[in-house]
């Protein structure tokens, strides 16, 4: 009798504890407990053991590290990344659990949320601008200087002056790989059909409007862009067109101050293009992939995008996107890349670009004795003198000893990109990298409402500025 009572009580207690135990696996708990677990043995361990943390970590068996990058989808370096990871895995015996994805606002939000909920990766290739402020401020990534205390050779092949400091605290965290530029890709087959010349270094906004009208009259979509999905590049250049490289990185204090008025004017230029019917009919409901396919299929003439899209365009000309030998050279010859049309004081050859991303090592990996050395080794491999040139191709890098570019290895579009870059008069960073995520919502997600007139450009800009000011408090 008593035994049965006791059994019932014990079973209930076990079930209750089991459920409460489940609660202790909530996302934040391990993050909070992890440092204590890793730090306490070090504090209590004999001095001899405490002095050799690197050896201890290297002595452990193969480990799996989680890595997230933007080398995925249409990115030029998606295949290079896979190859480099495979090489590192083969050389070290470690493995990579990769969660790379195409870079867009959803990706950025996912990363920030992962940090907030304690499920960040061990190594991260991410933006070095204001988008990283939250996790930098939270101390969830390790600075290059801190890593060098223990691993003096870390990123020593990089020119430190070219490594961007975090706007959050001025420290350097992200080891860069390849630079980027943003420019206007052109489908010359469409231009030929519409009787339009390929734009050059003196191409103006007015000429662009005239050409768009001709292309539209010929039955093509002048601009391949999904304003409801990825308005980023148009946002950046439309604002840049109201400014100069000297003041492009200024953040407005209000929609009606000088910089604010430039932002508003830029957004109204996009609205004008929309009203003239220069974007695809489904620009508000399409995804970026859909409009990109329109461009590569010869249904749209211009595509404003980044250097990473070169690989996507080349891939679309291959019968097997992963095998460069299957390229259709004739199809690729119909693509070109040129400068965004200039307006006002911005020269056509003033471009957006730089080194905006890099490899971070998270505090979680750094404080894990099993993963610390592996994470450092991974970043050192991915940013080595051998790997970086493969990624940089026709863009810049921060290497101290960057090898001379061998154009004979390039495809036709990469050669055209190199030619365009040789005429650049300035390379300015993207102001959207300083105007972080939440602030951009009213003008990025709100772009469809702006172009159809549901919301005025001034109101949308002011809303973004208000959020920006809020984040500074």
């Amino acid at each position, binding site marked *: *009798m008593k035994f*049965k*009572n006791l059994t*019932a*009580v014990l079973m*209930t207690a076990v*079930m*209750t504890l*089991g*459920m*409460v135990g489940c*609660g202790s696996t909530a*996302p*934040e708990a391990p993050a909070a407990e992890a440092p204590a677990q890793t730090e306490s043995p070090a504090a209590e361990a004999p001095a001899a053991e405490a002095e050799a943390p690197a050896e201890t970590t290297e002595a452990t068996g193969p480990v799996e590290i989680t890595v997230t990058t933007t080398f995925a989808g249409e990115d030029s370096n998606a295949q290079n990344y896979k190859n480099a990871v495979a090489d590192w895995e083969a050389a070290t015996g470690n493995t990579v659990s990769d969660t790379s994805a195409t870079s867009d*606002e*959803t990706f950025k*939000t996912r990363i*920030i*949320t992962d940090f*907030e*909920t*304690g499920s960040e990766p061990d190594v991260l290739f991410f933006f070095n601008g204001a988008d990283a402020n*939250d996790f930098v401020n939270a101390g969830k990534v390790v600075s290059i200087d801190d890593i060098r205390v223990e691993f003096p050779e870390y990123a020593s092949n990089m020119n430190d002056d070219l490594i961007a400091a975090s706007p959050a605290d001025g420290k350097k965290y992200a080891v860069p790989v390849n630079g980027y530029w943003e420019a206007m890709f052109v489908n010359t087959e469409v231009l030929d059909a519409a009787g339009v010349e390929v734009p050059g270094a003196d191409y103006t906004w007015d000429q662009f409007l005239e050409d768009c009208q001709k292309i539209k009259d010929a039955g093509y979509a002048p601009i391949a862009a999904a304003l*409801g*999905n990825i308005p980023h590049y148009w946002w950046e250049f439309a604002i840049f067109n109201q400014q100069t490289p000297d003041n492009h990185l200024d953040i407005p204090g209000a929609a009606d101050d000088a910089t604010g008025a430039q932002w508003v004017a830029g957004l109204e230029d996009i609205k004008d293009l929309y009203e003239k019917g220069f974007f695809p*009919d*489904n620009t*508000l*409901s*399409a995804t970026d992939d*859909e409009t990109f*396919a*329109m461009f590569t*299929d010869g*249904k749209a003439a211009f595509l404003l995008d980044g250097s990473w899209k070169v690989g996507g365009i080349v891939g679309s000309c291959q019968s097997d996107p992963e095998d460069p030998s299957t390229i259709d050279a004739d199809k690729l010859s119909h693509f070109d890349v040129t400068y965004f049309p200039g307006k006002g004081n911005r020269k056509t050859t003033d471009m957006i670009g730089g080194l905006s991303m890099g490899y971070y090592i998270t505090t979680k990996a750094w404080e894990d004795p099993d993963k610390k050395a592996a994470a450092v080794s991974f970043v050192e491999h991915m940013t080595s003198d051998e790997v970086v040139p493969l990624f940089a191709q026709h863009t810049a890098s921060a290497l101290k000893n960057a090898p001379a570019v061998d154009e004979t290895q390039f495809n036709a579009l990469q050669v055209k990109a190199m030619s365009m870059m040789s005429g650049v008069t300035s390379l300015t960073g993207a102001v959207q990298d300083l105007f972080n*995520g*939440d602030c951009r*919502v009213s003008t990025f*997600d709100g772009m*469809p*409402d702006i172009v*159809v007139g*549901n919301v005025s450009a001034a109101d949308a800009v002011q809303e973004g500025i208000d959020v920006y000011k*809020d*984040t500074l408090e």
Partner: protein
Amino acid sequence: MSNIYKSKKYVFLFLAPAFLFMIIYLYYPFFVNIYGSFRGIKNLGTFGTKWNTPWYENYVKLVTDPVVRTSLKNTFIMIIATIVGQVGIALLLAILVDNIERGTQFFRTVYFFPIVISATALGLLFNLIFLYDKGMLNQFLELFGRTELIDWKGEKLAIMTMMIPVVWQYVGFYFVILQTGLNNISQELYESAAIDGATRFQRVWYISLPLLRNVLCTCLTLGVTGALKVFDLPWTMFPKGMPLKETFLTGTYMYYQTMEAKNVDYGATLAVLIVVLGVVLSRLTRLVFKESEDF
């Protein structure tokens, strides 16, 4: 020996784990969520650093936000689509299948199959069907001579395009429930009616439907409350309420504000609205679709 069964305290003892579970994972987060709706929160996992000014700011915004009105409207359309589309079509199919002698199991499997496919996969599948350029539907229309492409996901058709896959996915679920209900009706009733000269329609109208009333009520209650929780398929097909925030449901708008716009406190306010809506609608549903004890 018998005390253990008579004593009520053991009942409470066994109820305790589930009760604790509910407290920790449902009621505590719910009250924390209400608290959060009055705070200024930018990041998940925190309570923010300050109170909103005024503290009820988000609730004022809730009333004035046009997107909330759109999402409420869409949610009610979704409820109607559930009642008419999911339960209605499922009832029709169940009655038809009940009237055939062979292949019942085959149709059960066929209609139920969409339920086992992930909603995200279905969303991607329907994205290809409704694609503007080279989508399956537009290619079919081209075959029939149509020269202009239809933007199925555009402003005019977006809601319909969003509802079709959701309705299609769950028809099988209600079909199986209703079919089971029909199987429980004694064949003798149908045979007697047939002998009395009742047509097939009369047998359905005067026997099947009245005896299926309680099962139908259960299906409708499940449908209405389920419609409030639809999330993954609409979000996959129409992320961020595309186009022009016209396709937001209450759930997708809450997610957008919390995870995408990083307006966590406003997301919490929308969550409160969803709970209130859920409670009110489930009470209403129970009143309207009250089960009868006659059957």
